[in-house]
Structure formats: C-alpha cells, structure tokens
C-alpha cells in the first residue's frame, strides 16, 4: 500500500501495447516479487475515478536494465508497465509523455514463488498478453533457471533476453503445443484472465501432472489494498481477493 515514486523516463511503442519505462529509487524495489502489481491513477481529475492495476512487466535493480530498455535507464533501478489501450484509463496512461510523474500505489499483492529445485521453467502467456512473465523470466535467469516462454499473442523478440526460448502459440489448439513443454518443465507459471481460469484448471487436470502451476490472474481490481472486497475469485477455500490474497494463485486452489 506504499506510495511509490516513479516517473516516465521513456516510452516505446509496440504493435500490441505501449511500454512505459519508469525510474525508481532502488530501495523502493527491494524485495519486490514478479507477479506483484501497482495501482496507477489514470486521470488528472475525478473521472475515471478508480486506479488501474498493472503488473510489473519488468523490474530491475540499478545497472541491470533488461533488453530493449532505453539507454538513460542503464544505470538506474526501474520498472516497466505494459499498457495495452483497452479503455479510458489505459488509453490515458498510454499517452503519458516522457518526464511525467505517475501516481502509483504498490508494489501490492503476492507474487510468484520459484521452487528451490526448479531448473526448467515454462511460462505461458495467454491472449491478454505477457503480464508479469517477463519480469519472472529475468528473475529466473538470475537464478540460473532455463526459461521457455509460450506466447499466444506476438511479443517483441527484441525485448526478450537471448537466453529465453520464445515460442508463439496458435490461438486454437495451443494445448497440444504446450503439453510436451510441460513435461520438460519443473514448474509452470501462467498469466491470464480470471474469466478463463476454469478452462486452464481443466487442462491441468487432463494433463494428469503433479507439477506446480501458478497463475497471475488478471481481473478488475478496484482498490488494490483488499479493503473494498470487490475483486474476489472462487477458490477451494472460498472467496479470495485478487489484490490481497493474489494475484498469483496456485492453480490447484482454483480447481486445477
């Protein structure tokens, strides 16, 4: 729930989204986990009223900016937001000019946890985009874990670390393409909308695997702090809040 001070240092335009590159004070990012998110004010006045939730698309400490980061961020800690204009708030945010401060709350929620014995990590980005999975890839590579990223929507190859295998998935029949890679992986991490989670859970059950699947859920989050009780998802233990109890859940909690 901390307020995070960050300003837009650069923006890069891509086919599906605008990437906002933000500089932050390094201490503010200590201990941040991939999968956590920030709540961003997306208006100067009172409409749209609510903040928008954005996963931390990239997170890096000082001197470790990811591929594609603008040169002025090479020596600074920072984070990047993948902003896909889909409504009034995101369209406003995608137009933020360079040198604009952003009003952020965060980092919020619980992120991904890599198992200590994971050596091969499979990342699966569903149609809504890569969410926090690139930040997770960076994190895994730093722990000498090999990473394969399956993406349902095209993702710019120049933003992907060269050590990561990037594979495009077809919109239909992607499960057959992904299944052998599940066999290869020690752990599977996904990003996708709450609306599609029951299909993913059913897919995991059909695979008959005991491997751990974690998913960063995307859904409407109103306050981000757990207070409004608005963003609930049904789990094995009843309603749980995406913002406070997630957004990363074990897929088994969601029926997988």
């Amino acid at each position, binding site marked *: 729930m901390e307020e995070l001070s960050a300003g837009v240092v650069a923006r890069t335009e891509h086919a599906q989204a605008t990437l906002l590159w933000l500089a932050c004070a390094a201490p503010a990012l200590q201990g941040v986990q991939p999968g956590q998110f920030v709540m961003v004010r997306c208006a100067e006045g*009172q409409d749209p*009223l609510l*903040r928008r939730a954005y996963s931390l698309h990239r997170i890096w400490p000082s001197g470790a900016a990811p591929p594609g980061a603008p040169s002025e961020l090479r020596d600074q800690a920072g984070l990047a937001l993948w902003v896909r204009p889909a409504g009034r708030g995101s369209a406003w945010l995608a137009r933020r000019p360079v040198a604009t401060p952003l009003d952020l709350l965060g980092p919020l929620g619980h992120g991904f946890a890599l198992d200590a014995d994971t050596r091969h990590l499979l990342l699966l980005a569903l149609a809504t985009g890569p969410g926090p999975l690139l930040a997770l890839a960076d994190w895994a590579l730093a722990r000498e874990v090999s990473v394969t990223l399956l993406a349902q929507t095209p993702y710019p190859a120049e933003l992907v670390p060269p050590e990561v295998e990037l594979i495009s998935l077809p919109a239909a029949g992607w499960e057959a393409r992904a299944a052998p890679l599940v066999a290869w992986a020690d752990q599977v991490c996904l990003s996708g909308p709450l609306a599609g989670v029951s299909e993913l859970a059913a897919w995991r059950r059909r695979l008959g695997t005991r491997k751990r699947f974690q998913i960063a859920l995307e859904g409407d989050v109103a*306050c981000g702090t757990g*207070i409004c009780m*608005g963003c*609930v998802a049904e789990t094995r233990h*009843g*309603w749980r809040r995406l913002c406070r109890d997630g957004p990363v859940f074990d897929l088994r909690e969601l029926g997988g």
Partner: protein
Amino acid sequence: MTEPLDLSVPLASGLTLANPVMVAAGGLGFGGELAHRLDLDRLGGLVTPSITLGARRGYPPPRLVEAVAGVLSSTGLPNPGLAAVVRGQAPVWATWRLPVLASLAGATADEFGELAEGLAAAPGVAGLELNLADQPAGGLLDRLVPAEVGAIVAAVRPRAALPLLAKLPSGAAGLVDLARAAVEAGADALTIGHGLPGLAWDRTRRRPRLAVGGGTLSGPAIRPLALRAVAEVVAAVSAPVVGCGGISRGADALEYLQAGAVAVQVCTACLVTPRAPWTILEEIAQTLAAAQVRSLNDWLE
C-alpha cells in the same frame, strides 16, 4: 508560540472527536490491516464495515464496477460476524486513541439489539452506527419507514450505553421523517447518508453488470445529492448530523461543515487513495490556518 488549531467536534455525550474527518463504514476496513502503515490516531474516527450476527461471505462477483466519477457496488456485507469481530478486532481497537464506531447490520430490530449488546460489551468500541440502508438479505430498505427506523433504534438504545448514530440513505423517500424518528427513538446523531441506488448495464451480455443486479452509487458523482440531503436533515432535526457522500478533498468536507454537518465521513476516496482522509484533514487545517482562525468553530461562525 502559535496555539494549535482546535478542530475538535462534539458528536454525542461522551464522544468528542479530535477533528471532523472520519472514515465511513468500509472505507478502510476494520483498520487493523492498515494500522501499521497509516497514522489512524490522527483521524476523528473510524466506522467499521457493517457487522452481522453470523459471518457473511458476501455476494458473488462482479461486486463493484466503475461509473462516471463514481463507483457502483453491491458486496453483500462480507464480514466475519459478531463473535469473530469481538474476539479478533475489538482488542486491537482498544489499543488506539482513535474512536472506533462499530457499524451494525441486522435483519430485524431484535438482531440490531443483539449486535449492539455484543459490541457494547467489547473493548475498544467508542460508539455504534446503525446501518439502516444496506441490509443483509435486502428487504429492509423497501420497508424503511419511520416506524421501522424508530423500532430498530428503540430496540438498540436500552442494550448499549454508547453513543448511537443512525445511518440513513441520502436518497430515501421521506428522509427527514426517518431522521426525526431515529432521534425521537434515542439516536444521539445521524449519518447522512449512504450512496444512491443505481444500475450499470452490460450491453453485450444483456444483463446488469453487477452479479446481483442493482447496487449503490458512491463517489464524487453523488456529492451534490448527498449534500442536499444533509442540509435538509440539518434544517429539520436538532441532533448532530455527520455528512457522507463523495468527499474527496478538504474543500468538499468544508462545504458539508458549512451546510451544518458536525463531521464528515470519507469512503470511496479511500478506495482510490487510502491516505485520502489524512489529505482532507491537512487541507482543512491549511484553509483554517490561512484564515487565521484558532478553531473550526471560529471559522464556521
């Protein structure tokens, strides 16, 4: 040395707030989750989310959608129930200077009485606020008539020797009569009000966007309507009135106070920025300092 500004406001016998900025029911939850990050003791008061006799899971999602300059919500009052609140939350409130007012939501007058008795016996409860606008299992709003309001307040009054606020919805028909009935039955003060009934529509799915259909509209969109309701009740009853509805800036709060409210409650603004009540308080203090007055009363006169 400059004397500190006196922002204190008497709300009821035995309950004077350090300043007029309160958090409305649900604005910051039960307070405990955020207490280590926010200086709660600086505020005038905190009203808890509405407490029911038994635990409630709340309604299925979607529970909350954005409206123009506002929020439409229907959560179904999720809360852990009276016993869990008394056991788990009240001992924490007892360690704060901040007055905590417990919001009660009963389905009947008897239930309100039982809730009041249970909370009056708990540590750390400075007052009670009866939620007469947003009841579990619906229904009560449909029969929100002066006799029913009076019966609920009368059922609570002898069972709790605590300051008692009755919260009424700004948009209720015959609001002034409801307010009079609450005061005549023993309410010490009134909270006006609660959001207004609304509906958001999903054209693609051809149904309401909220899972349960309609909801309550809150936020800046309703502020002029809520302010009018406060002014009408202030003109009609002598009991203190707490204003609530779309307050997100110090200037908004000062408008309510000039219109006759003794204090204000902040709710939806907390969902946007949890520090909103503190910012509002600072903006009020800045306005009074700029006017070179020593107290809120001096500024209002």
